[in-house]
């Protein structure tokens, strides 16, 4: 590590995240990234991994933030909880936003804490008027406290609730409309949830409110079986995106145009060249979508 990387960040305004492919930042790759300066559009970090007072994580992130735009992705705020948000955790998120000035800031449509126990998993919630109101109130509170717009991510789910009275897309649309928040479209989550809930993924994407989407996630899933021996997919983030998910991504881009896209690979993390190759593969789809859009614009002119 160079001495200057321990200095506070010079820039005071967020660098916008370009409509390119970014990569989820893992400690295993800090050194490779700083020495090779790979041509990656941006990086995303899990906010909770940078909530210590000091030490190497902050040094590395500061050094990488000086070279690349950054997106901050929370995994522990429990926005879907019936109980009030953890004020201390909100303060930590606000402090990280101020320190690193990320171009995007996102969290999940899920809950993970109950009675102060943190489950470290993104748990599902029933979709009805009460939960819409609860989530919208929490998103308002996050945006007011942190002082910026957030993106809310569609979940991977394995079960449904008999109590649900509205669909997932109606739910997300309603929260975005009420709060002004954006949406994070995780295309792997779309495939996982649509398979698990027996919905049609193309139909899901065709009905998704693309005008609110500020970021896309791509990841790999693990195949499994449900109670009847039928296919059930697990949101595992432990391998490249499945070809079916890449096709869905292509379809999503045809509706929303080029959008910042993250390659998430959180378990069985590969070496940097493998992860970089996955980013290039996804970027080739994004580049094609951008060319198509440019061509359409040219025709329109």
């Amino acid at each position: 590590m160079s001495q200057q990387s321990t200095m506070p960040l010079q820039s005071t305004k967020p660098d916008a995240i370009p409509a390119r492919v970014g990569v989820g930042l893992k400690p295993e790759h800090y050194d490779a990234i700083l020495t090779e300066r790979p041509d990656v559009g941006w990086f995303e970090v899990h906010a909770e991994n940078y909530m210590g007072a000091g030490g190497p994580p902050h040094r590395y992130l500061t050094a990488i933030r000086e070279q690349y735009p950054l997106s901050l992705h929370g995994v522990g705020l429990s926005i879907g909880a019936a109980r009030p948000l953890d004020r201390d955790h909100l303060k930590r998120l606000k402090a990280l936003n101020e320190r690193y000035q990320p171009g995007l800031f996102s969290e999940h449509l899920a809950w993970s804490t109950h009675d102060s126990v943190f489950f470290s998993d993104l748990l599902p919630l029933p979709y009805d008027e009460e939960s819409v109101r609860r989530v919208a109130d929490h998103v308002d509170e996050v945006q007011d406290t942190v002082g910026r717009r957030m993106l809310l991510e569609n979940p991977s789910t394995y079960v449904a609730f008999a109590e649900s009275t509205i669909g997932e897309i109606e739910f997300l649309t309603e929260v975005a409309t009420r709060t002004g928040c954006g949406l994070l479209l995780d295309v792997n989550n779309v495939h996982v949830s649509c398979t698990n809930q027996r919905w049609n993924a193309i139909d899901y994407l065709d009905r998704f409110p693309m005008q609110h989407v500020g970021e896309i996630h791509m990841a790999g899933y693990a195949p499994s079986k449900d109670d009847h021996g039928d296919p059930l997919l697990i949101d595992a983030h432990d391998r490249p995106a499945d070809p079916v998910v890449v096709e869905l991504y292509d379809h999503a881009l045809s509706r929303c145009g080029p959008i910042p896209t993250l390659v998430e690979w959180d378990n069985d993390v590969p070496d940097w060249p493998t992860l970089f190759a996955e980013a290039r593969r996804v970027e080739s789809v994004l580049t094609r979508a951008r060319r198509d859009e440019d061509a359409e614009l040219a025709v329109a002119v």
Partner: protein
Amino acid sequence: MLNLQSLSEIQAEFAEALRNPAAAIPAGIVGPDGGPAPKRFSIYRNNVLVALGNSLAGAFPAVKRIVGEDFFKVMARTYVLESPPTSPVLMDYGKTFPAFIARFEPASSLPYLADVARIERQWRESYHAADAVPLPSTALAEVPEAELADVTFRLHPSLRLSKSSFPAVTIWRMNASDVPTSAVDFAIGEDALIVRPDAEVEVRVVPPGGTAFVEALASGESLGSAAALGQSSDERFDLGGNIAGLIGAGAFVEIRRGLEQVPQ
């Protein structure tokens, strides 16, 4: 279907079923056919145990290497069910894991295991502690000899101590890195001094009496009275050796002389 349960009630039931493997799966949890789906629900139970177990495995790699992957998994799951995290900041999770290991019956044949876990826990705290620039090795030489006994120190925020009546540092080192295994004298107790003066966490064996000495300095005792405490805790206590060792380790960030403070 009538909506009888509030969101809070649904989540309370869901959470109880996650925490207690014997608890019934909430009635409203269904598959796409609207029927019960215990296998689907068990994915969440499994995810919780795997995620938190992996978090402990990442924080206690030497303990895992000593007991092996399968034993560690069982021990971690038992701990997770008994003491789940109370914060989403998982770098803080596992503070009580060493004490749990000390009373975890299946591990009782490895009496030093809890002390190795203590070193790993303190290592993690040191890694994430606030940064500070240690005093240079010449700093103490600038204090007039007559004032030496009265000076106090501000210790590095990353400094931690870990006591053991076993050779815990040697055992930790053999299992935390690929240093060759050698014969270990189990009669020798090793206390650890853990500090991160810059980017790297460093672990040292504390010399005799050194733990009482550093604890006294940390609580604000003067050099003179801390030395007396070190001496009374172990007659082999060597003041000069301890101070040189601490300065070399980067343990001090500030010397305070009386009311006036000497900037480094």
